[in-house]
Protein backbone atom coordinates (compact mmCIF):
# COMPACT_ATOMS: atom_id res chain seq x y z
CA UNK A 1 0.00 0.00 0.00
CA UNK A 2 3.06 2.21 0.29
CA UNK A 3 3.07 2.89 -3.42
CA UNK A 4 -0.50 4.05 -3.22
CA UNK A 5 0.16 6.52 -0.46
CA UNK A 6 -0.10 9.49 -2.81
CA UNK A 7 -3.50 8.42 -4.04
CA UNK A 8 -6.08 10.75 -2.61
CA UNK A 9 -9.82 11.12 -2.59
CA UNK A 10 -12.15 8.76 -4.38
CA UNK A 11 -9.51 6.31 -5.55
CA UNK A 12 -8.13 5.84 -2.04
CA UNK A 13 -11.57 4.74 -0.85
CA UNK A 14 -12.00 2.39 -3.78
CA UNK A 15 -8.59 0.79 -3.18
CA UNK A 16 -9.33 0.35 0.50
CA UNK A 17 -12.67 -1.20 -0.38
CA UNK A 18 -11.10 -3.58 -2.89
CA UNK A 19 -8.43 -4.56 -0.42
CA UNK A 20 -10.99 -5.41 2.24
CA UNK A 21 -13.07 -7.27 -0.35
CA UNK A 22 -10.03 -9.35 -1.30
CA UNK A 23 -9.32 -10.37 2.29
CA UNK A 24 -13.00 -11.11 2.86
CA UNK A 25 -13.17 -13.20 -0.34
CA UNK A 26 -10.14 -15.25 0.64
CA UNK A 27 -11.45 -16.02 4.09
CA UNK A 28 -15.00 -16.79 3.08
CA UNK A 29 -14.00 -18.87 0.04
CA UNK A 30 -12.14 -21.26 2.32
CA UNK A 31 -15.40 -22.17 4.01
CA UNK A 32 -16.93 -23.48 0.77
CA UNK A 33 -16.23 -26.99 -0.43
CA UNK A 34 -17.30 -30.58 -0.82
CA UNK A 35 -16.36 -31.62 2.72
CA UNK A 36 -18.85 -30.62 5.39
CA UNK A 37 -16.89 -28.37 7.67
CA UNK A 38 -18.61 -25.37 9.20
CA UNK A 39 -17.15 -21.90 9.04
CA UNK A 40 -16.23 -21.78 12.70
CA UNK A 41 -14.12 -24.90 12.38
CA UNK A 42 -12.40 -23.52 9.28
CA UNK A 43 -11.58 -20.26 10.99
CA UNK A 44 -10.33 -22.12 14.02
CA UNK A 45 -8.14 -24.17 11.70
CA UNK A 46 -6.66 -21.08 10.08
CA UNK A 47 -6.17 -19.06 13.23
CA UNK A 48 -5.03 -21.76 15.66
CA UNK A 49 -5.17 -25.58 15.50
CA UNK A 50 -7.62 -27.72 13.62
CA UNK A 51 -10.23 -29.74 15.49
CA UNK A 52 -9.47 -32.96 13.64
CA UNK A 53 -6.62 -34.16 11.36
CA UNK A 54 -9.18 -34.48 8.60
CA UNK A 55 -10.00 -30.79 8.90
CA UNK A 56 -6.31 -30.01 8.89
CA UNK A 57 -5.86 -31.94 5.66
CA UNK A 58 -8.88 -30.45 3.90
CA UNK A 59 -8.18 -26.86 4.91
CA UNK A 60 -4.41 -26.72 4.53
CA UNK A 61 -3.83 -29.22 1.72
CA UNK A 62 -6.90 -28.63 -0.41
CA UNK A 63 -8.79 -25.44 0.22
CA UNK A 64 -6.12 -22.90 1.07
CA UNK A 65 -3.84 -23.76 -1.87
CA UNK A 66 -6.83 -23.73 -4.16
CA UNK A 67 -8.15 -20.37 -3.00
CA UNK A 68 -4.68 -18.82 -3.06
CA UNK A 69 -3.93 -20.12 -6.56
CA UNK A 70 -7.36 -18.89 -7.65
CA UNK A 71 -6.47 -15.47 -6.28
CA UNK A 72 -3.08 -15.16 -7.97
CA UNK A 73 -4.31 -16.71 -11.22
CA UNK A 74 -7.10 -14.14 -11.36
CA UNK A 75 -4.66 -11.37 -10.50
CA UNK A 76 -2.21 -12.48 -13.17
CA UNK A 77 -4.80 -12.87 -15.91
CA UNK A 78 -6.44 -9.53 -15.13
CA UNK A 79 -3.09 -7.71 -15.00
CA UNK A 80 -1.96 -9.30 -18.26
CA UNK A 81 -5.26 -8.28 -19.87
CA UNK A 82 -4.99 -4.70 -18.61
CA UNK A 83 -1.38 -4.40 -19.77
CA UNK A 84 -2.18 -5.84 -23.19
CA UNK A 85 -5.17 -3.56 -23.63
CA UNK A 86 -3.17 -0.45 -22.81
CA UNK A 87 -0.12 -1.51 -24.79
CA UNK A 88 -2.04 -2.45 -27.92
CA UNK A 89 -4.68 0.26 -27.36
CA UNK A 90 -7.24 -2.42 -28.08
CA UNK A 91 -10.05 -2.72 -25.52
CA UNK A 92 -10.75 -6.28 -26.67
CA UNK A 93 -7.21 -7.58 -26.07
CA UNK A 94 -6.99 -10.58 -23.79
CA UNK A 95 -4.05 -12.89 -23.17
CA UNK A 96 -6.16 -15.77 -24.47
CA UNK A 97 -6.84 -14.12 -27.77
CA UNK A 98 -3.11 -14.31 -28.48
CA UNK A 99 -3.35 -18.05 -29.00
CA UNK A 100 -2.08 -18.92 -25.54
CA UNK A 101 -4.75 -21.53 -24.73
CA UNK A 102 -4.43 -23.34 -28.01
CA UNK A 103 -0.64 -23.21 -27.74
CA UNK A 104 -0.78 -24.73 -24.27
CA UNK A 105 -3.27 -27.31 -25.51
CA UNK A 106 -0.96 -28.28 -28.36
CA UNK A 107 2.02 -28.51 -26.01
CA UNK A 108 0.06 -30.77 -23.68
CA UNK A 109 -1.21 -32.87 -26.59
CA UNK A 110 2.26 -33.49 -27.94
CA UNK A 111 3.49 -34.30 -24.45
CA UNK A 112 0.82 -37.00 -24.05
CA UNK A 113 2.15 -38.64 -27.20
CA UNK A 114 5.73 -38.64 -26.00
CA UNK A 115 5.35 -39.54 -22.35
CA UNK A 116 2.55 -41.31 -20.58
CA UNK A 117 3.66 -41.41 -16.95
CA UNK A 118 4.95 -38.60 -14.76
CA UNK A 119 2.46 -36.42 -16.54
CA UNK A 120 2.09 -34.04 -13.63
CA UNK A 121 5.59 -32.74 -14.26
CA UNK A 122 5.84 -33.03 -18.00
CA UNK A 123 2.43 -31.78 -19.05
CA UNK A 124 2.58 -28.36 -17.36
CA UNK A 125 6.05 -27.81 -18.75
CA UNK A 126 4.90 -28.77 -22.24
CA UNK A 127 1.83 -26.53 -21.88
CA UNK A 128 4.06 -23.64 -20.79
CA UNK A 129 6.36 -24.10 -23.78
CA UNK A 130 3.38 -24.44 -26.12
CA UNK A 131 1.91 -21.19 -24.81
CA UNK A 132 5.19 -19.33 -25.26
CA UNK A 133 5.56 -20.87 -28.71
CA UNK A 134 2.18 -19.55 -29.86
CA UNK A 135 2.84 -16.07 -28.50
CA UNK A 136 6.20 -15.98 -30.27
CA UNK A 137 4.55 -16.97 -33.55
CA UNK A 138 1.77 -14.43 -33.14
CA UNK A 139 4.18 -11.64 -32.31
CA UNK A 140 6.56 -12.70 -35.08
CA UNK A 141 3.83 -12.59 -37.70
CA UNK A 142 2.51 -9.25 -36.45
CA UNK A 143 6.04 -7.83 -36.63
CA UNK A 144 6.41 -9.12 -40.18
CA UNK A 145 3.12 -7.44 -41.07
CA UNK A 146 4.50 -4.30 -39.41
CA UNK A 147 1.13 -3.67 -37.91
CA UNK A 148 0.43 -4.07 -34.23
CA UNK A 149 -3.26 -3.55 -34.90
CA UNK A 150 -3.23 -6.96 -36.51
CA UNK A 151 -1.89 -8.62 -33.37
CA UNK A 152 -5.31 -9.73 -32.23
CA UNK A 153 -6.44 -11.03 -35.60
CA UNK A 154 -3.13 -12.86 -35.99
CA UNK A 155 -3.74 -14.39 -32.57
CA UNK A 156 -7.15 -15.65 -33.60
CA UNK A 157 -5.74 -17.15 -36.81
CA UNK A 158 -2.83 -18.83 -35.01
CA UNK A 159 -5.26 -20.14 -32.38
CA UNK A 160 -7.28 -21.95 -35.01
CA UNK A 161 -4.16 -23.32 -36.63
CA UNK A 162 -2.74 -24.71 -33.38
CA UNK A 163 -6.14 -26.06 -32.28
CA UNK A 164 -6.60 -27.90 -35.54
CA UNK A 165 -3.18 -29.53 -35.13
CA UNK A 166 -4.11 -30.55 -31.56
CA UNK A 167 -7.46 -31.92 -32.64
CA UNK A 168 -5.84 -33.87 -35.46
CA UNK A 169 -3.34 -35.48 -33.10
CA UNK A 170 -6.04 -36.26 -30.54
CA UNK A 171 -8.37 -37.69 -33.14
CA UNK A 172 -5.75 -40.13 -34.35
CA UNK A 173 -4.36 -40.87 -30.92
CA UNK A 174 -5.21 -42.56 -27.68
CA UNK A 175 -8.70 -41.66 -26.36
CA UNK A 176 -7.34 -41.47 -22.81
CA UNK A 177 -4.94 -38.77 -23.85
CA UNK A 178 -7.94 -36.65 -24.80
CA UNK A 179 -9.15 -36.70 -21.21
CA UNK A 180 -5.85 -35.42 -19.94
CA UNK A 181 -5.59 -32.68 -22.52
CA UNK A 182 -9.14 -31.51 -22.12
CA UNK A 183 -8.11 -30.19 -18.70
CA UNK A 184 -5.96 -27.53 -20.35
CA UNK A 185 -8.74 -26.53 -22.65
CA UNK A 186 -11.39 -26.09 -19.96
CA UNK A 187 -9.37 -24.82 -17.05
CA UNK A 188 -9.51 -26.11 -13.51
CA UNK A 189 -8.09 -25.45 -10.09
CA UNK A 190 -8.63 -29.05 -8.87
CA UNK A 191 -5.03 -30.22 -8.86
CA UNK A 192 -3.23 -27.11 -7.63
CA UNK A 193 -0.64 -27.09 -4.85
CA UNK A 194 1.04 -24.45 -2.73
CA UNK A 195 4.06 -24.66 -5.02
CA UNK A 196 1.94 -23.28 -7.88
CA UNK A 197 0.87 -20.41 -5.70
CA UNK A 198 4.48 -19.45 -4.96
CA UNK A 199 5.40 -19.71 -8.62
CA UNK A 200 2.51 -17.61 -9.92
CA UNK A 201 2.82 -15.13 -7.06
CA UNK A 202 6.48 -14.58 -7.97
CA UNK A 203 5.52 -13.90 -11.59
CA UNK A 204 2.95 -11.37 -10.43
CA UNK A 205 5.48 -9.67 -8.21
CA UNK A 206 7.83 -9.36 -11.18
CA UNK A 207 4.97 -7.98 -13.27
CA UNK A 208 3.99 -5.39 -10.69
CA UNK A 209 7.56 -4.19 -10.20
CA UNK A 210 7.94 -3.86 -13.98
CA UNK A 211 4.71 -1.91 -14.19
CA UNK A 212 5.75 0.44 -11.37
CA UNK A 213 8.92 1.09 -13.33
CA UNK A 214 7.30 1.58 -16.71
CA UNK A 215 3.86 2.98 -15.91
CA UNK A 216 4.58 6.42 -17.35
CA UNK A 217 5.80 4.97 -20.60
CA UNK A 218 2.73 2.75 -20.89
CA UNK A 219 0.52 5.77 -20.20
CA UNK A 220 2.26 7.65 -23.00
CA UNK A 221 1.25 4.91 -25.44
CA UNK A 222 -2.41 5.73 -24.82
CA UNK A 223 -2.14 8.83 -27.03
CA UNK A 224 -0.56 6.88 -29.88
CA UNK A 225 2.86 5.55 -30.81
CA UNK A 226 3.96 8.80 -32.42
CA UNK A 227 3.15 10.82 -29.34
CA UNK A 228 4.87 8.28 -27.08
CA UNK A 229 8.00 8.32 -29.24
CA UNK A 230 8.08 12.12 -29.06
CA UNK A 231 8.13 11.79 -25.27
CA UNK A 232 11.27 9.66 -25.51
CA UNK A 233 9.68 6.21 -25.33
CA UNK A 234 11.26 3.41 -27.35
CA UNK A 235 7.88 2.09 -28.43
CA UNK A 236 8.97 -1.19 -30.04
CA UNK A 237 11.20 -2.16 -27.15
CA UNK A 238 8.57 -1.31 -24.55
CA UNK A 239 5.97 -3.34 -26.41
CA UNK A 240 8.21 -6.40 -26.71
CA UNK A 241 9.13 -6.31 -23.01
CA UNK A 242 5.52 -6.06 -21.94
CA UNK A 243 4.18 -8.65 -24.37
CA UNK A 244 6.89 -11.08 -23.24
CA UNK A 245 5.98 -10.41 -19.62
CA UNK A 246 2.27 -10.97 -20.23
CA UNK A 247 3.02 -14.13 -22.19
CA UNK A 248 5.20 -15.51 -19.39
CA UNK A 249 2.62 -14.75 -16.68
CA UNK A 250 -0.23 -16.20 -18.68
CA UNK A 251 1.74 -19.25 -19.78
CA UNK A 252 2.61 -20.04 -16.16
CA UNK A 253 -1.01 -19.78 -15.13
CA UNK A 254 -2.21 -21.86 -18.09
CA UNK A 255 0.39 -24.52 -17.35
CA UNK A 256 -1.13 -25.24 -13.92
CA UNK A 257 -4.70 -24.02 -14.13
CA UNK A 258 -5.50 -24.58 -17.79
CA UNK A 259 -7.39 -22.23 -20.05
CA UNK A 260 -9.36 -19.70 -18.02
CA UNK A 261 -10.56 -17.30 -20.66
CA UNK A 262 -11.94 -13.77 -20.64
CA UNK A 263 -10.84 -12.76 -17.11
CA UNK A 264 -8.20 -10.52 -18.68
CA UNK A 265 -10.78 -9.05 -21.01
CA UNK A 266 -13.51 -8.36 -18.49
CA UNK A 267 -11.79 -7.19 -15.34
CA UNK A 268 -9.92 -4.16 -16.77
CA UNK A 269 -13.19 -2.87 -18.26
CA UNK A 270 -14.84 -2.89 -14.85
CA UNK A 271 -11.78 -1.33 -13.20
CA UNK A 272 -11.58 1.47 -15.79
CA UNK A 273 -15.06 2.58 -14.82
CA UNK A 274 -13.98 2.76 -11.17
CA UNK A 275 -10.41 4.01 -11.28
CA UNK A 276 -9.73 5.54 -14.69
CA UNK A 277 -7.50 4.47 -17.54
CA UNK A 278 -3.98 5.35 -16.39
CA UNK A 279 -1.74 2.36 -15.92
CA UNK A 280 -0.89 2.35 -12.20
CA UNK A 281 -4.40 2.43 -10.71
CA UNK A 282 -5.67 0.26 -13.55
CA UNK A 283 -3.15 -2.53 -12.98
CA UNK A 284 -3.41 -2.56 -9.18
CA UNK A 285 -7.19 -2.36 -9.35
CA UNK A 286 -7.29 -5.12 -11.97
CA UNK A 287 -5.11 -7.35 -9.80
CA UNK A 288 -7.46 -6.97 -6.83
CA UNK A 289 -10.71 -7.28 -8.79
CA UNK A 290 -9.35 -10.15 -10.92
CA UNK A 291 -8.21 -12.05 -7.82
CA UNK A 292 -11.59 -11.70 -6.10
CA UNK A 293 -13.43 -12.54 -9.30
CA UNK A 294 -11.63 -15.83 -9.87
CA UNK A 295 -11.87 -16.85 -6.22
CA UNK A 296 -15.67 -16.44 -6.39
CA UNK A 297 -15.99 -18.10 -9.79
CA UNK A 298 -14.12 -21.07 -8.33
CA UNK A 299 -16.54 -21.14 -5.41
CA UNK A 300 -19.37 -21.24 -7.95
CA UNK A 301 -17.61 -23.97 -9.90
CA UNK A 302 -17.40 -26.05 -6.74
CA UNK A 303 -20.91 -25.47 -5.49
CA UNK A 304 -23.41 -24.95 -8.35
CA UNK A 305 -23.89 -28.66 -9.05
CA UNK A 306 -23.96 -31.16 -6.23
CA UNK A 307 -21.13 -33.69 -6.34
CA UNK A 308 -19.79 -32.38 -9.66
CA UNK A 309 -17.21 -29.69 -10.23
CA UNK A 310 -17.63 -27.52 -13.28
CA UNK A 311 -14.33 -26.64 -14.98
CA UNK A 312 -13.72 -22.99 -14.10
CA UNK A 313 -12.89 -21.99 -17.67
CA UNK A 314 -16.41 -22.94 -18.77
CA UNK A 315 -17.91 -20.43 -16.33
CA UNK A 316 -15.50 -17.59 -17.11
CA UNK A 317 -15.96 -18.11 -20.85
CA UNK A 318 -19.73 -18.15 -20.49
CA UNK A 319 -19.74 -14.89 -18.52
CA UNK A 320 -16.96 -13.46 -20.69
CA UNK A 321 -18.60 -14.02 -24.04
CA UNK A 322 -21.72 -12.19 -22.93
CA UNK A 323 -19.53 -9.42 -21.53
CA UNK A 324 -17.61 -9.26 -24.83
CA UNK A 325 -20.84 -8.69 -26.74
CA UNK A 326 -21.96 -6.11 -24.18
CA UNK A 327 -18.73 -4.15 -24.66
CA UNK A 328 -19.19 -4.14 -28.42
CA UNK A 329 -22.77 -2.99 -28.02
CA UNK A 330 -21.67 -0.21 -25.70
CA UNK A 331 -18.85 0.95 -28.03
CA UNK A 332 -21.33 0.98 -30.89
CA UNK A 333 -23.63 3.26 -28.90
CA UNK A 334 -20.95 5.67 -27.74
CA UNK A 335 -18.66 5.45 -30.75
Amino acid sequence: MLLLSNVKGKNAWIFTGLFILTIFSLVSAITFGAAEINSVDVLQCVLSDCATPMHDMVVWQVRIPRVLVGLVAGMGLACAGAILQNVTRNPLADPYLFGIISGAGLGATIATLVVTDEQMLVLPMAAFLGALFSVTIVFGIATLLRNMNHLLLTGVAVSFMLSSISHFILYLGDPFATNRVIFWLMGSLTSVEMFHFYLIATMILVTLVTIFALHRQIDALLLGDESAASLGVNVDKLRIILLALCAAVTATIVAYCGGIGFVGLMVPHIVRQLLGVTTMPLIIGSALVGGCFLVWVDVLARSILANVEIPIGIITSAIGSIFFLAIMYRTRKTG
Partner: protein
Amino acid sequence: MNNLLTLDAVSWAVENQTILSNISFDVAQGDILGIIGPNGAGKTSLLKCLLNQTKNWQGSIKLKNKSISHYKPHELAQTFALVVQKSPPIFELKVYDVVRMGLLPYKTLFARDTDIDKKEIILALKKVGLATSKNKLFNTLSGGEQQRVLIAKALVQKAKILVLDEPTNHLDIFYQHQILQLVKALKITVVMTIHDLNLAAQYCTRIVLLNKGTLVSDSTVDEALNPTTLSKVFGLPCFRDNVQQYPNSKVATVPRVHFYPNNTNIPISVGKN
Protein backbone atom coordinates in the same frame (compact mmCIF):
# COMPACT_ATOMS: atom_id res chain seq x y z
CA MET B 1 25.23 32.22 -34.99
CA ASN B 2 22.17 31.85 -32.87
CA ASN B 3 20.86 28.76 -34.58
CA LEU B 4 18.98 26.36 -32.41
CA LEU B 5 18.51 23.85 -35.17
CA THR B 6 20.51 23.31 -38.33
CA LEU B 7 19.42 20.99 -41.12
CA ASP B 8 22.10 20.15 -43.65
CA ALA B 9 21.36 18.14 -46.80
CA VAL B 10 18.62 16.04 -45.21
CA SER B 11 17.43 13.32 -47.57
CA TRP B 12 15.16 10.37 -47.02
CA ALA B 13 14.22 7.61 -49.42
CA VAL B 14 12.09 4.55 -48.80
CA GLU B 15 12.44 1.68 -51.27
CA ASN B 16 14.02 3.89 -53.92
CA GLN B 17 11.26 6.43 -53.64
CA THR B 18 12.53 9.84 -52.68
CA ILE B 19 10.59 11.43 -49.88
CA LEU B 20 12.99 14.23 -49.00
CA SER B 21 15.93 15.36 -51.03
CA ASN B 22 18.75 17.63 -49.96
CA ILE B 23 16.92 19.89 -47.54
CA SER B 24 18.93 22.49 -45.65
CA PHE B 25 17.75 25.34 -43.46
CA ASP B 26 18.28 26.81 -40.01
CA VAL B 27 15.91 27.56 -37.22
CA ALA B 28 16.87 30.37 -34.88
CA GLN B 29 15.74 30.83 -31.30
CA GLY B 30 12.30 32.43 -31.30
CA ASP B 31 11.46 31.63 -34.90
CA ILE B 32 7.95 30.59 -35.78
CA LEU B 33 8.76 28.52 -38.80
CA GLY B 34 5.94 27.45 -41.09
CA ILE B 35 6.52 24.52 -43.41
CA ILE B 36 4.15 24.80 -46.37
CA GLY B 37 3.67 22.86 -49.56
CA PRO B 38 1.18 20.65 -51.38
CA ASN B 39 0.08 17.22 -50.14
CA GLY B 40 2.93 14.75 -50.42
CA ALA B 41 5.57 17.51 -50.45
CA GLY B 42 7.28 15.88 -47.47
CA LYS B 43 6.17 18.25 -44.71
CA THR B 44 5.24 15.62 -42.17
CA SER B 45 8.20 13.44 -43.18
CA LEU B 46 10.49 16.35 -42.44
CA LEU B 47 9.00 16.65 -38.94
CA LYS B 48 9.60 12.93 -38.43
CA CYS B 49 13.28 13.37 -39.29
CA LEU B 50 13.50 16.38 -36.97
CA LEU B 51 12.16 14.33 -34.07
CA ASN B 52 14.48 11.45 -34.97
CA GLN B 53 11.41 9.22 -35.23
CA THR B 54 12.51 7.51 -38.38
CA LYS B 55 15.61 5.72 -39.52
CA ASN B 56 17.60 5.68 -42.73
CA TRP B 57 17.47 9.38 -43.45
CA GLN B 58 20.72 10.97 -44.59
CA GLY B 59 22.35 14.29 -43.97
CA SER B 60 22.67 16.01 -40.64
CA ILE B 61 20.31 17.66 -38.22
CA LYS B 62 22.05 19.50 -35.45
CA LEU B 63 20.49 20.75 -32.28
CA LYS B 64 22.73 23.35 -30.62
CA ASN B 65 25.62 22.17 -32.83
CA LYS B 66 25.29 18.55 -31.80
CA SER B 67 23.80 15.92 -34.09
CA ILE B 68 20.34 14.81 -32.93
CA SER B 69 21.36 11.17 -33.26
CA HIS B 70 23.81 11.79 -30.41
CA TYR B 71 21.04 12.84 -28.06
CA LYS B 72 19.31 10.29 -25.90
CA PRO B 73 15.56 9.92 -26.52
CA HIS B 74 14.63 11.62 -23.25
CA GLU B 75 16.98 14.53 -24.01
CA LEU B 76 15.31 15.05 -27.36
CA ALA B 77 11.95 14.87 -25.60
CA GLN B 78 13.10 17.66 -23.28
CA THR B 79 13.75 19.82 -26.35
CA PHE B 80 11.04 18.94 -28.85
CA ALA B 81 7.38 18.68 -27.98
CA LEU B 82 5.11 17.24 -30.61
CA VAL B 83 1.57 18.54 -30.79
CA VAL B 84 -0.38 16.24 -33.04
CA GLN B 85 -3.60 14.33 -32.72
CA LYS B 86 -4.46 12.15 -35.67
CA SER B 87 -6.90 9.70 -34.14
CA PRO B 88 -8.82 9.99 -30.88
CA PRO B 89 -7.51 7.87 -28.00
CA ILE B 90 -9.44 4.62 -27.57
CA PHE B 91 -9.63 4.83 -23.79
CA GLU B 92 -11.27 7.60 -21.82
CA LEU B 93 -8.23 9.65 -20.87
CA LYS B 94 -8.85 12.66 -18.67
CA VAL B 95 -7.42 16.04 -19.64
CA TYR B 96 -5.20 15.88 -16.57
CA ASP B 97 -3.83 12.46 -17.60
CA VAL B 98 -2.87 13.78 -21.03
CA VAL B 99 -1.05 16.83 -19.67
CA ARG B 100 0.66 14.64 -17.07
CA MET B 101 2.36 12.70 -19.87
CA GLY B 102 4.60 15.73 -20.35
CA LEU B 103 6.45 14.80 -17.15
CA LEU B 104 7.79 11.60 -18.71
CA PRO B 105 11.13 12.90 -20.10
CA TYR B 106 12.08 14.17 -16.64
CA LYS B 107 11.18 11.10 -14.62
CA THR B 108 13.31 8.14 -13.65
CA LEU B 109 11.77 4.68 -13.71
CA PHE B 110 10.07 4.45 -10.33
CA ALA B 111 9.52 8.17 -9.75
CA ARG B 112 6.11 9.37 -8.63
CA ASP B 113 4.43 12.72 -9.18
CA THR B 114 5.51 15.33 -6.66
CA ASP B 115 3.35 18.23 -5.47
CA ILE B 116 5.44 20.50 -7.69
CA ASP B 117 4.59 18.31 -10.69
CA LYS B 118 0.91 18.59 -9.90
CA LYS B 119 1.10 22.36 -9.60
CA GLU B 120 2.95 22.51 -12.89
CA ILE B 121 0.22 20.55 -14.63
CA ILE B 122 -2.46 22.88 -13.28
CA LEU B 123 -0.39 25.93 -14.24
CA ALA B 124 0.03 24.65 -17.79
CA LEU B 125 -3.72 24.07 -18.03
CA LYS B 126 -4.32 27.62 -16.78
CA LYS B 127 -2.02 29.00 -19.47
CA VAL B 128 -4.11 27.37 -22.18
CA GLY B 129 -7.33 28.39 -20.44
CA LEU B 130 -8.50 24.91 -19.51
CA ALA B 131 -7.86 24.73 -15.76
CA THR B 132 -11.50 24.03 -15.06
CA SER B 133 -11.59 21.14 -17.53
CA LYS B 134 -8.92 19.02 -15.89
CA ASN B 135 -11.28 16.20 -14.99
CA LYS B 136 -13.13 16.22 -18.30
CA LEU B 137 -12.59 13.42 -20.78
CA PHE B 138 -10.17 14.37 -23.52
CA ASN B 139 -12.39 12.74 -26.16
CA THR B 140 -15.35 14.95 -25.30
CA LEU B 141 -13.48 18.23 -25.93
CA SER B 142 -13.72 20.17 -29.17
CA GLY B 143 -10.83 19.97 -31.64
CA GLY B 144 -9.49 23.36 -30.58
CA GLU B 145 -9.61 22.44 -26.90
CA GLN B 146 -7.82 19.15 -27.61
CA GLN B 147 -5.03 21.06 -29.35
CA ARG B 148 -4.76 23.35 -26.32
CA VAL B 149 -4.53 20.34 -23.98
CA LEU B 150 -1.68 19.01 -26.11
CA ILE B 151 0.02 22.39 -25.91
CA ALA B 152 -0.34 22.26 -22.13
CA LYS B 153 1.37 18.86 -22.28
CA ALA B 154 4.19 20.48 -24.28
CA LEU B 155 4.48 23.17 -21.60
CA VAL B 156 4.85 20.55 -18.88
CA GLN B 157 7.44 18.94 -21.13
CA LYS B 158 9.33 22.29 -20.90
CA ALA B 159 10.18 21.94 -24.56
CA LYS B 160 12.39 24.50 -26.27
CA ILE B 161 10.87 23.77 -29.67
CA LEU B 162 7.18 23.19 -30.24
CA VAL B 163 6.50 20.96 -33.23
CA LEU B 164 3.00 21.16 -34.64
CA ASP B 165 1.64 19.11 -37.51
CA GLU B 166 -1.30 20.90 -39.11
CA PRO B 167 -2.51 22.55 -35.88
CA THR B 168 -5.44 24.25 -37.59
CA ASN B 169 -6.85 21.20 -39.36
CA HIS B 170 -10.51 20.54 -38.63
CA LEU B 171 -10.83 23.79 -36.71
CA ASP B 172 -13.20 26.61 -37.58
CA ILE B 173 -11.82 30.07 -38.25
CA PHE B 174 -12.21 31.25 -34.66
CA TYR B 175 -10.26 28.31 -33.24
CA GLN B 176 -7.64 28.50 -36.00
CA HIS B 177 -6.72 31.99 -34.84
CA GLN B 178 -7.12 31.14 -31.18
CA ILE B 179 -4.64 28.27 -31.38
CA LEU B 180 -2.08 30.20 -33.42
CA GLN B 181 -2.31 33.25 -31.16
CA LEU B 182 -1.75 30.98 -28.18
CA VAL B 183 1.27 29.42 -29.86
CA LYS B 184 2.66 32.84 -30.66
CA ALA B 185 2.07 34.12 -27.13
CA LEU B 186 4.12 31.30 -25.63
CA LYS B 187 7.21 32.95 -27.10
CA ILE B 188 9.07 29.75 -27.77
CA THR B 189 10.53 28.42 -30.98
CA VAL B 190 7.91 26.79 -33.16
CA VAL B 191 8.20 24.52 -36.18
CA MET B 192 4.88 23.72 -37.79
CA THR B 193 3.43 22.36 -40.97
CA ILE B 194 0.43 24.32 -42.10
CA HIS B 195 -1.85 24.15 -45.11
CA ASP B 196 -3.42 27.57 -44.95
CA LEU B 197 -0.90 29.95 -46.56
CA ASN B 198 -2.63 33.05 -45.31
CA LEU B 199 -2.61 31.85 -41.72
CA ALA B 200 1.07 31.04 -42.18
CA ALA B 201 1.62 34.57 -43.46
CA GLN B 202 -0.12 36.03 -40.47
CA TYR B 203 1.59 34.07 -37.69
CA CYS B 204 4.94 32.76 -38.95
CA THR B 205 8.19 34.64 -38.89
CA ARG B 206 9.72 32.46 -41.57
CA ILE B 207 8.42 30.08 -44.17
CA VAL B 208 9.92 27.01 -45.76
CA LEU B 209 8.22 25.93 -48.97
CA LEU B 210 8.55 22.29 -49.98
CA ASN B 211 7.51 20.61 -53.19
CA LYS B 212 7.97 16.94 -54.05
CA GLY B 213 10.50 16.49 -51.29
CA THR B 214 12.73 19.39 -52.28
CA LEU B 215 13.14 22.80 -50.76
CA VAL B 216 11.73 25.50 -53.01
CA SER B 217 12.34 28.45 -50.77
CA ASP B 218 13.39 29.35 -47.25
CA SER B 219 12.60 32.97 -46.66
CA THR B 220 10.63 35.65 -44.94
CA VAL B 221 6.89 35.60 -45.23
CA ASP B 222 6.95 38.39 -47.78
CA GLU B 223 9.32 36.55 -50.13
CA ALA B 224 7.69 33.18 -49.57
CA LEU B 225 4.29 34.32 -50.76
CA ASN B 226 5.47 34.77 -54.29
CA PRO B 227 2.49 34.22 -56.63
CA THR B 228 4.63 32.93 -59.49
CA THR B 229 6.34 30.27 -57.36
CA LEU B 230 3.15 29.31 -55.52
CA SER B 231 1.21 29.00 -58.71
CA LYS B 232 3.85 26.64 -60.07
CA VAL B 233 3.98 24.56 -56.87
CA PHE B 234 0.24 24.28 -56.27
CA GLY B 235 -0.74 24.08 -59.94
CA LEU B 236 -3.33 26.84 -59.77
CA PRO B 237 -3.25 30.47 -60.83
CA CYS B 238 -2.28 32.56 -57.81
CA PHE B 239 -2.77 36.24 -57.04
CA ARG B 240 -1.53 38.30 -54.16
CA ASP B 241 -2.60 41.39 -52.29
CA ASN B 242 -1.70 42.96 -49.00
CA VAL B 243 -4.28 43.51 -46.33
CA GLN B 244 -4.36 45.70 -43.28
CA GLN B 245 -3.98 43.37 -40.33
CA TYR B 246 -4.95 45.46 -37.34
CA PRO B 247 -5.25 49.20 -36.98
CA ASN B 248 -2.17 50.51 -35.11
CA SER B 249 -0.39 47.19 -35.55
CA LYS B 250 3.38 47.10 -35.90
CA VAL B 251 2.93 44.89 -38.90
CA ALA B 252 1.00 47.21 -41.09
CA THR B 253 0.09 44.79 -43.78
CA VAL B 254 0.05 41.07 -44.24
CA PRO B 255 0.53 39.52 -47.64
CA ARG B 256 -2.41 37.41 -48.74
CA VAL B 257 -2.68 35.02 -51.63
CA HIS B 258 -5.71 33.76 -53.48
CA PHE B 259 -5.94 30.83 -55.84
CA TYR B 260 -8.43 30.77 -58.67
CA PRO B 261 -9.04 27.76 -60.87
CA ASN B 262 -9.68 30.26 -63.69
CA ASN B 263 -13.13 28.94 -64.48
CA THR B 264 -11.64 25.79 -65.92
CA ASN B 265 -12.45 22.41 -64.48
CA ILE B 266 -9.49 20.69 -62.89
CA PRO B 267 -9.31 17.21 -64.39
CA ILE B 268 -9.48 14.62 -61.64
CA SER B 269 -7.57 12.04 -63.63
CA VAL B 270 -4.26 13.87 -63.44
CA GLY B 271 -2.27 15.16 -60.51
CA LYS B 272 -0.81 18.59 -60.08
CA ASN B 273 1.96 19.85 -62.36
